[in-house]
Structure formats: structure tokens, C-alpha cells
């Protein structure tokens, strides 16, 4: 029982990291039908910015974790909006293939830049949570896992409130559902896409800063996480924000359980198993659990 709950908590913590990155992917995918392959590297890069804020003195002193966390979120937002304006916007009328290639170019550039500026060696990234555990009914619950889970879901909840209850959120949803109609009604859809990139970058930064304390900081830290996030998003349905969160969490728990109870599944096989799950989901239910099946006229 003890083992089960620990696997569950670790799975939920990992899963929430996948969920926030999966949600970032869905945000951009829903609005533009483009998979942003640079999403993971954007998250990695902003985590390095957090690292710089934490370790190098700016204006005379270094920041402690939470101020650095929030400053990083703001920087990530500006960074995301900027990337959309500078790199993606000029390709507005290009094919999806070209835009996807541009995001791959971004992936390469950000990966190279991080190695160039901060060196490719693994770095220690501090955790805001203690390493101790709570004992509830004989079960040890890690404060680190609980903290990661809580922070990530709080960020997702704030974003959901924004989309659900603000006028700007409504405009963004309208722009995603029907860009032409939204533009005719006076919504500036082009800028909304930039906003979408901004929010996606913020979610990525959260996932990066939450996974770095346990996985260490390196230019390739988010590559595997991005694939888990993809698999999570596919599992939930690439069209559905709720699906992305549930899919990400579900995948985290599933992998944690497989790692605990199925012995041939060693850590090296986490990715191949995720790939397998992804392929099986695509075969059985291509639209994911929460997705709608889009019927195309032939």
C-alpha cells in the first residue's frame, strides 16, 4: 500500500510537469494547428534564465527562489510573445510544414544558445520544497512531489480562470475556434496568437523550473519531457485543454506504476513505453480521450 501511494504521488508530480507542457502545446495547436517543437527548449531556456537570476547578482543581489520564479514567468511571457512576433509572424501565410520547420529551427537555436551561454554540463537547480516527507497513516508523502503537483496545477487553474472569465480569454477562445469570424467582429487575432505563445512559454517555464530540481539543469533536460507531454496531449486529445492536463497526469501515473510493479520496465524503457502508448492511442482512438473526431469530406 505504502509503495502504491508513493508511486501514485511521484506519478502525479511527474505527470503535472507533463501536463503543463502538454497544455502549452495544445494552446498553440488549437489556435494555429502547428505543433511547436521548440516548446521544450523554450522551457529549458527560461529555466536557465531562472538559474541566472538565482545564482548571479543582478542590481547588487541574487534573488531567492519565489521572486526568481515569478520574475522568470514574466520574462517567459515576453519571450514567448517576442518569438511569435519575430520568428513566426513573418510566416503567417506560409504552409504548416514551413511553420513547423521554423519551430524546429528555434529548437536548434535555443538548444545551441543554452550550451553556448551556460555550457552543456549538468547544473544543480535548487528546489523550493524540503526533501522531508509527511507521514499520513503510515504512508510517506514527499513534500517535493506534493509541492510540484500543487504549484503546477495552481498555474493551470489560473490560466483556466483567465480563459473562462475574462474578456481577453473569451476573445482568445473565439480566435481559436473561428479566426475569420473573430476578426470580422473586431478581434485582433494576430496579436492573440502572440498572447497564446506568451502563455505557452509561461506554462513551459513552470514545467522547466519544477522538473529541474530533480532532473538537473542541462540543454537537453526537456527533450524527454516534451515527448512525454506529446504523448500526454495525444492521450487526452490534441484539441482539448482539459484532455492535455488529464492525459499528462494519467501518463505520469501510468509510467510510475509500470516502473514500480513491472520489473522489465527500467528507467531506460520509460520513453519507449511512452512511444508505444502514443502509437496504441493513435491506433485505437486517434482523437484522444477528450477529443472530437473531425470528419473531413473526401
Amino acid at each position, binding site marked *: 500500500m505504502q509503495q502504491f501511494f508513493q508511486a501514485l504521488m511521484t506519478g502525479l508530480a511527474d505527470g503535472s510537469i507533463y501536463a503543463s507542457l502538454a497544455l502549452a502545446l495544445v494552446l498553440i495547436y488549437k489556435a494555429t494547428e502547428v505543433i511547436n*517543437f521548440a516548446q521544450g527548449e523554450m522551457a529549458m531556456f527560461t529555466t536557465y534564465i531562472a538559474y541566472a537570476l538565482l545564482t548571479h547578482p543582478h542590481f547588487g543581489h541574487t534573488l531567492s527562489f519565489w521572486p526568481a520564479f515569478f520574475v522568470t514567468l514574466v520574462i517567459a511571457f515576453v519571450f514567448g510573445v517576442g518569438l511569435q512576433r519575430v520568428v513566426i509572424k513573418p510566416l503567417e501565410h506560409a504552409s504548416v510544414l514551413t511553420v513547423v520547420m521554423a519551430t524546429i529551427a528555434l529548437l536548434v537555436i535555443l538548444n*545551441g544558445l543554452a550550451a553556448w551561454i551556460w555550457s552543456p554540463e549538468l547544473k544543480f537547480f535548487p528546489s523550493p520544497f524540503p526533501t522531508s516527507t509527511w507521514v499520513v497513516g503510515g504512508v510517506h508523502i514527499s513534500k517535493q512531489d506534493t509541492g510540484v503537483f500543487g504549484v503546477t496545477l495552481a498555474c493551470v487553474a489560473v490560466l483556466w480562470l483567465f480563459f473562462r472569465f475574462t474578456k481577453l480569454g473569451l476573445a482568445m477562445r473565439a480566435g481559436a475556434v473561428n479566426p475569420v469570424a473573430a476578426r470580422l467582429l473586431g478581434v485582433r487575432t494576430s496579436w492573440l496568437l502572440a498572447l497564446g505563445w506568451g502563455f505557452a512559454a509561461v506554462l513551459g517555464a513552470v514545467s522547466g523550473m519544477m522538473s529541474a530540481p530533480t532532473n538537473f539543469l542541462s540543454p537537453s533536460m526537456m527533450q524527454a519531457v516534451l515527448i512525454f507531454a506529446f504523448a500526454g496531449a495525444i492521450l487526452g486529445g490534441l484539441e482539448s485543454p482539459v484532455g492535455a492536463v488529464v492525459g499528462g497526469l494519467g501518463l505520469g501515473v501510468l509510467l510510475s506504476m509500470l516502473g514500480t510493479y513491472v520489473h522489465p520496465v527500467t528507467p531506460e524503457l520509460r520513453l519507449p513505453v511512452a512511444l508505444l502508448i502514443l502509437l496504441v492511442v493513435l491506433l485505437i482512438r486517434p482523437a484522444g480521450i477528450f477529443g472530437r473526431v473531425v470528419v473531413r469530406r473526401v
Partner: protein
Amino acid sequence: MRLRWGYLGFALLVVAVIVAPLVSTNYRTFQLAFVGIYLIALLGLNILTGFTGQISLGHGAFMGIGAYATTILVVDHGWNDLLTLPVAGIVAGLAGLAFGLPATRFAGPYLALATFAIPLSFIGVLKRFPHFTGGTLGKQLPSLHSQFGIDANPSVWIYWVSWIVALAMFLLAYALVRGRFGRALRSVRDSEIAATASGVSTSGIKCAAFGISAFFCGVAGGLFAIAVTYVNPDTFPIDLSILLLVGIVLGGAGSLSGMIFGALFVEFIRITWGPALLDLFSQVHHINTRAPGSSLVVYGVVLLLVLYAAPAGAAGLVRRLVTGRAAVAAWAKQDRTPADEQA
């Protein structure tokens, strides 16, 4: 007319291949051998990406599968290394089919997304079964040596082996894309709906293209293993898969001859061209141009600039310079590669 230009171009290529080692140092000849190897991989990936319109971020792993097939056959079963090449291609091709069968049933971005997981999964599998693959340490092949009683420098030997195979694969790729099958590929790229309406099985075609491209990459991987005489899980990182895709875009997706530019780029950008380009800037700014990651930044930026300025790649640029046809400009504007380009 077009056909005659194609033959002339291929004849020129053969002449260039014969002349190049005569005027090159051994080291340069060895590098050019890798251009031939990358050319094979790019020709294959181009059938999938350029002609069928499906992005793959995982074909470096199919090179890896071919390389491991060759290595295991040579080291553990005592095969002649050249005889392993067809097997390397077939093993990788079957792996490609096995992956493509579920993954290519879907339209849109799903395939690209799933392929991104292949290189990382491949590394995981290699490490999980060390008794078969050598695990993290990898496997060592016998040193490079000429065969059939030919007394040649190892660099020159591998150059000829690579380029003879590459030229043969070039002709094979040409044969594949010119006829009915090639038209089916392009119809899937240009409009899946129209292709389906014309009786083309889009998933079948995509799956076939995936298997064929993996076959090409497997052969390239086998040659790669013979040339570097050592494979381990880090030999085929995700960067290689991305670099192959970049080579396609730069050479000109949907153009066979463009892949020669692409292969030159893939071989030389990381160690030669990238640093040289950065050195130009370092005259002005004080930056460490040999730092890790710097060449990645260079080729990322080059890729972006190509996407903005010349979406049809190097082949498109040459075409525009040579023919000056307005049609090419129109293609570039629509952001589509020349539809009927052959060789």
C-alpha cells in the same frame, strides 16, 4: 529536354565523384565519403518529406538501426562488412514499416510528433539490452581496410564504396519518384483529399514511403558504421535526425539533385562552415566561436533564413538562377516545392 538535362547532370555528378579524390587530401576524401553516406540518407528521407510531405524527426535512428545491424553481423557473426549493407537496409526498412503502419494512418502533425520520440526511445532500447548491443560502451568494428586485393588507402576505399552505393541509390530514388508511384507520393503531399478521391490509398502510400526512407537510412547507417568503425548509443543522437531534416530543407525538399547540397551541408556545417562563419563575426565582437552549441546556433539561423528567403532550398535557387522562370517564383511564394521536379 528536361530528361536530357537530367542525364547531363547525372553524368556531371559521376565525373565530379571520380575527380574529387584525385584532387583531395586523404582527410578531405574521408569527409567526402561521409557526404556520400549522408546523400543516401537524405535521398531516402526526401522520398518521405519532400515527395510525400511527411515530416520525420526520427530518421537518424533508422541510420542507427542499420549501423547496429551491420556491426552485430560483422562482429558477432563474422560477415563481410559489404554484404551486411542490404541486410542493414532491410532491417531498418522493416522497422520503419512497423512504425509507419500505425503512425501513418493519420493526417496532419501526428506523424512528425510521433517520430520525434524514435531517436530517444532507440537510445533507451540500446541501453536496456546490453548483451545484444554492447550497451553504453557500444561495439568496435574491425579497422577500415580495402578488399578484393585492391591496395588502396582506407579513406579512398571507403570513399569509393560510399559513392558507388550512393550513385546506385540515386538511380533507385529516381526510378521510384518518376513513375506512377512517384505521382501517388506527390498527390498525397499536395492534397490528401484529392489523392483519396483519385483512388490513392493515402495511408498505404505514406507507410510505403516511410519504409523506403528507412531502408535508405539503414544502408547509410551500415556504411556509417563501417566508416567510423565504432558505434554506441551517442553515435545517433536526436541532433542527427534534426540535421538530416535541415539538410532536406536546405537542399530543396522534393528535389533529388538538391540532396547533394544538403549532404555537403550536413557534413561540413558542424566542423567547417559553422565555425568559419562565426569567425567572421568574432572579428567584430569578442565571442568564443569554438564553444559548444555555437555551430547549432549557426545552422538553426541558416535554416530560418532559408525558410524565409528560399523555401524551395538550394535546388530552387539554382533553378531560379538558371531558368529565371516566373513559375519558380510563384512556387516559392505559394511555399510549395516544384511539383514535378525530377532528379
